[in-house]
């Protein structure tokens, strides 16, 4: 019996990856939830928006790398990030101008906007594949580990190692900063307050002189920033592949819905709930239990609840369970 080793193994394989993944999901879900709250539709193009922003950032990263610019131990992508955000913000504002504005003026039913977003998804997906191709792109550079498994073992003398990658550390720190900025913006600034007013009651907000086009514009810019940051963090942590980003749509939607669509705090909570359940349910607990139980009771099998390929299924099962008991999510979401 060895509680410390078990804890470290658990942290290494479950806690650290789930925290990083949860932060990425939370940032993605915040974008979905903002669009739902203010533009009032579920944006199916969000996964591809993330892919687009990440692609823009990767292109800047490569350019910086070719000029010999680096960020020391941190990945160069962080320097390229603002430029990537700017490009994707312009792209989203352009999309809004060309596509969405027409339907907004018409006051089209939300479900029509969802179908329109399917069209945008196809186009964005095509654009990304057209520019960068369908292959895996790795763009992480700088140091790889904050602490590696070997160093950790040496430091503590434990049998199990704990590795924390730079990308995981950056993900958490960036996510905290971004979320803090977002909540400051929504709760303290004039524009943020007008966005919330618009989201709560459109008619009342219009009566009090809020300019709806400005609110929409600011929303798209924030969404571009959130999507690009989430996408880049995910890409640094794993790797960039357009199709994977498209597949992220499901866990991101699940996060936003579990928390309650239109509710930013819900989106963050949902992101972590989904990430932790995905990782725990598909993790083989053999090692952890091996440390906790006496040898005679040590498990034979992997003690894995579900095979790793059921990851997507997990996020969905949680979604259904939550919706069955709380039809608008854990934190009260909107229902247009």
């Amino acid at each position, binding site marked *: 019996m060895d509680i410390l080793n078990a804890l470290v193994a658990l942290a290494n394989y479950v806690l650290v990856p789930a925290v990083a993944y949860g932060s990425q999901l939370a940032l993605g879900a915040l974008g979905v939830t903002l669009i739902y709250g203010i533009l009032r539709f*579920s944006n199916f193009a969000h996964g591809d928006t993330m892919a687009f922003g990440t692609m823009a950032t990767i292109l800047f990263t490569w350019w910086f790398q070719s000029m010999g610019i680096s960020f020391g131990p941190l990945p160069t992508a962080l320097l390229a990030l603002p430029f990537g955000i700017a490009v994707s913000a312009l792209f989203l504002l352009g999309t809004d101008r060309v596509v969405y504005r027409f339907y907004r003026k018409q006051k089209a039913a939300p479900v029509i906007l969802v179908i329109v977003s399917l069209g945008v998804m196809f186009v964005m*997906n095509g654009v990304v*594949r*057209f520019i960068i191709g369908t292959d895996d792109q790795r763009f992480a550079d700088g140091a790889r580990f904050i602490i590696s498994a070997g160093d950790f073992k040496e430091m503590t003398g434990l049998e199990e190692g704990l590795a924390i990658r730079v990308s995981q550390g950056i993900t958490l720190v960036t996510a905290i900063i971004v979320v803090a900025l977002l909540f400051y913006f929504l709760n303290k600034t004039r524009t943020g307050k007008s966005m919330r007013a618009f989201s709560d009651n459109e008619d009342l907000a219009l009566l009090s002189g809020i300019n709806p086009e400005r609110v929409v514009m600011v929303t798209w810019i924030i969404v571009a920033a959130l999507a690009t940051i989430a996408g880049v963090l995910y890409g640094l942590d794993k790797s960039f592949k357009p199709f994977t980003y498209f597949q992220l749509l499901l866990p991101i939607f699940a996060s936003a819905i579990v928390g309650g669509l239109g509710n930013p705090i819900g989106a963050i909570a949902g992101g972590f709930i989904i990430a932790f359940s995905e990782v725990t349910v598909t993790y083989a607990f053999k090692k952890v239990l091996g440390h906790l139980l006496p040898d005679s009771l040590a498990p034979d099998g992997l003690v894995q609840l579900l095979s790793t*390929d059921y990851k997507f299924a997990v996020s969905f099962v949680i979604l259904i369970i939550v919706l069955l008991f709380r039809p608008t999510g854990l934190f009260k979401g909107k229902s*247009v």
Partner: protein
Amino acid sequence: MKHSMRAPALTVVVAILIIGTGFFQSWNSALGILNMGIISAIMALGVNLQWGFAGLFNVGIMGFVALGGLATVLIATPATKDAWQAGGIGIIAALILGAMTIIATIYANKNLPKGKYRILGVSSILVIGFFVFRAVFDPAVSSIEAINPAVTGNIGGLNLPVLLAWPAGGVLAAGVAWLIGKTALGLRSDYLAIATLGIAEIVIAVMKNEDWLARGVKNVIGIPRPVAYEVDLQVNAGFIEGAAKLGLDPVTASTLYVKLSYSILFTAVLVLLLVLAQLALHSPWGRMMRSIRDNEVAAEAMGKNVTKRHLQIFVLGSAICGIAGAMMVTLDSQLTPSSYQPLRFTFLIWVMVIVGGSGNNYGAVLGGFLIWFLWVQVEPAGNFIMETITSGMSDGDLKSHLIASAAHMRLMTMGIVLLLVLRFSPRGLVPET
């Protein structure tokens, strides 16, 4: 153009496109487009039933199509006797245990006093049930998958005629749709959309991982055919003579013959479903559906049971997608679970319905043909355009990149077509009358 002329005009356009393919490329590819076009049209009919008639936003079409495909394996392939002996009873017992757990959970949820006892009771039934299920299920699965895994490794099917798999695919899809509908149809449109999207992913995940059922990613190949085999035709003296009379060599003639046989079978199914869909649309039932779609509250006030009707049409539409899925696997004579991707099997079908005209059965069918034609032809067309554009450029990275990326023009074209139709002809090319 007058409304009544739109459907015939688009039919002519689609016919010209397909016949043109025959003249300019090959009759083989023309028939290929026709066959998959018919299957796409059937899927579009199913989606149109849900969305066009009733306004249900189902983005889980891929799941039902895949279930139809699974049905062909379960119906038409021969049973693996050893596997049945090794683990058949275990699998069946495990599935019964699983079903019992769920029934017990529902019963407990209804009958236990509200509060901590109910939460405790329900969750303990679920947890214990899960582990009991796994304890029976896992050994059965591994003993089945151990039987000759290079060739089978699954329990096989019932060895019945493959044509029976088509209705069976519909029934399987309908059964799953009923389960989903029972849980998810109470949700409002966006929530329903995400729910169906997720269920489709689960269906695919199960098909990819449960090797005992249909070999998972190892694919099932050589599913029996309802039509003749090329090799048999090529040694048939009468057939060779007939082909020679038409001025065709036996190999080409045999592939055309096989494809044409499929076209005839598929057309029969399409016509049957189209007639049924038209009858449904113009029946009191169809009018009720559309009135529910247009104003749920009013329909409810008139005493219509909206949830029940929604469930009904959700099951029917999904069943049609299941039939199409079974037909597709029959055409390919193989089941490849990893080929099911939402872009191709869910969102593309949506493009077909919206572009064709939701609420109009002819529109959906024609949209199916038109979009499928584009899906097949955009790639060669894109290559041609790119080669032309870049012909003046010197060889280099940019040129090769541009030519290589022409392959991705497909998705972009589909998106642009969808957006243009939504903008300038929001009710589709053949609008609802």
